[in-house]
């Protein structure tokens, strides 16, 4: 009997792919979100309708694009629309079920920072900035965040709120007029965090195979709450792993 092994990025990608349902419309960012969405479409969700912010709607690339506007996305799309239509007619109008986001920092209420580390006017590190993320987090039916777990990234309070998660707690999204549910899952290389339905604070609800609860709490920069029943992530199947590897060519996803 052969033993199936996988990397921490692979289990994160597979877990994120499983979060997508067939026939959903999905706003896809480049990197891990793009890999996960393409894995979902090649496994359990062949009808996943992928939208990249370059205007490619319903695209079915035969390989992973490096950028959100690679030619393969346009060649295989149902239609290519101008950028104002993507943001106004599709995202803002509430036509996208799920948005997939990455982040440099996330806090206990799933607020996301992709702008600066440190003070905005004299940053220690300047990051690329907002892009589509603020409105993806606001207007998609829900948002799923994918990022590697570390104390540097999982902080008590983000240095800059680029995209609003659950503000400072339950009720903030409604007060701000944000129409989507916001981040419903944060999928990492260690496990899965979900907002508490009463408080909006992220709680550890899922754990990948071989990971201990303590590893996750130690990699989190605030006192992470742990659900009563933490659900073990089922191991990746050989099919899932072979699809991930065929897409990434064994590179990091």
């Amino acid at each position, binding site marked *: 009997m052969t033993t199936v092994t996988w990397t921490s990025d692979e289990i994160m990608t597979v877990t994120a792919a499983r979060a997508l349902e067939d026939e959903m419309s999905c706003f896809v960012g480049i990197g891990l979100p793009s890999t996960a969405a393409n894995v979902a479409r090649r496994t359990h969700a062949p009808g996943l309708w992928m939208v990249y912010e370059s205007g490619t709607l319903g695209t079915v690339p035969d390989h992973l694009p490096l950028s959100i506007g690679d030619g393969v996305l346009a060649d295989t799309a149902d239609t290519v629309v*101008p950028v104002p239509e993507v943001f106004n007619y599709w995202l803002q109008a509430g036509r996208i079920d799920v948005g997939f986001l990455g982040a440099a920092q996330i806090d206990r209420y799933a607020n996301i920072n992709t702008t600066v580390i440190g003070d905005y006017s004299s940053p*220690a590190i300047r990051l690329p900035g907002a892009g589509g993320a603020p*409105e993806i987090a606001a207007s998609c039916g829900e948002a799923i965040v994918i990022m590697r777990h570390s104390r540097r990234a999982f902080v008590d309070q983000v240095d800059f709120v680029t995209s609003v998660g659950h503000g400072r707690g339950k009720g903030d999204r409604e007060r701000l007029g944000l129409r989507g549910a916001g981040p419903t899952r944060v999928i990492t290389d260690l496990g899965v965090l979900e907002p508490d339905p009463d408080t909006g604070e992220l709680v550890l609800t899922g754990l990948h195979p071989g990971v201990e609860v303590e590893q996750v709490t130690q990699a989190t920069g605030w006192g992470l709450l742990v659900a009563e029943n933490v659900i073990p992530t089922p191991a990746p199947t050989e099919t899932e792993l072979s699809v991930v590897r065929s897409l990434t060519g064994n590179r990091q996803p």
Partner: protein
Amino acid sequence: MVLSLDEAVRTLVHDGDTVALEGFTHLIPVAAGHEIIRQGLRDLTLVRMTPDIVYDQLIGAGCARKLVFSWGGNPGVGSLHRFRDAVVHGWPAPLEIEEHSHAGMTNRYVAGASGLPFAILRGYSGTDLVGNNPNISTVTCPFSGQEVAAVPAVNPDVTVIHAQRADPSGNVQLWGITGIQKEAALAAGRVLVTVEEVAETLEPVPGQVLLPGRIVDAVSVVPGGAAPSYAHGYYERDNSAYQAWDGISRDREAFNTWLEEQIGVPAAGGT
């Protein structure tokens, strides 16, 4: 109408202008950006949704005073290190920034193209972009009472884009991912388009954008002018060049060498 790139840039782009070189991953007017560097233009306010490596190069070469943008990165690779160095260390010159989201910038161009003073959108609510950018505000809908975000129109002095084809009258045809180029051109005071080729007649292509010649001030024929981005139907994106830029741009000395060897101008900043 059809001018050499050198003459077109000399005629249409001036020190202190607000300049938009647009292109959403596809059809980025890289050769025109290099000509702006070569002509030593200064104090530009550079506008673009997705400043990528050509803006990194313009910033590192000292052409820019200000950047108005929504996502400044090397697509699929990481950060822009000349942009970072300018923001964090003021090298080779301090860079003022005005930062939006894509939805905000998109609607600023739409308002600019529409002759409106500002645009509305559902956006920005609750983000720290609001307090850090006076060009993000709110307005109340007079009909429903809903509060929505408001951003001013953007009207560049000059917009520069790259397209697949033009005809001798200056009608311009582009297709594939057409991004925000139509709005950026219609919002601008002057329009410069570099093209892969001039054709006697423009055969229609599905999904095309056609910019009538009456809004185009100059067309320059620059085959390969979008490389290392791509021109749909002509050449592919050179992903390895984007990856290689990461190494060049991280290091001031490597960047200065690139500037001297590839563009033929002296470095703007010492290391």
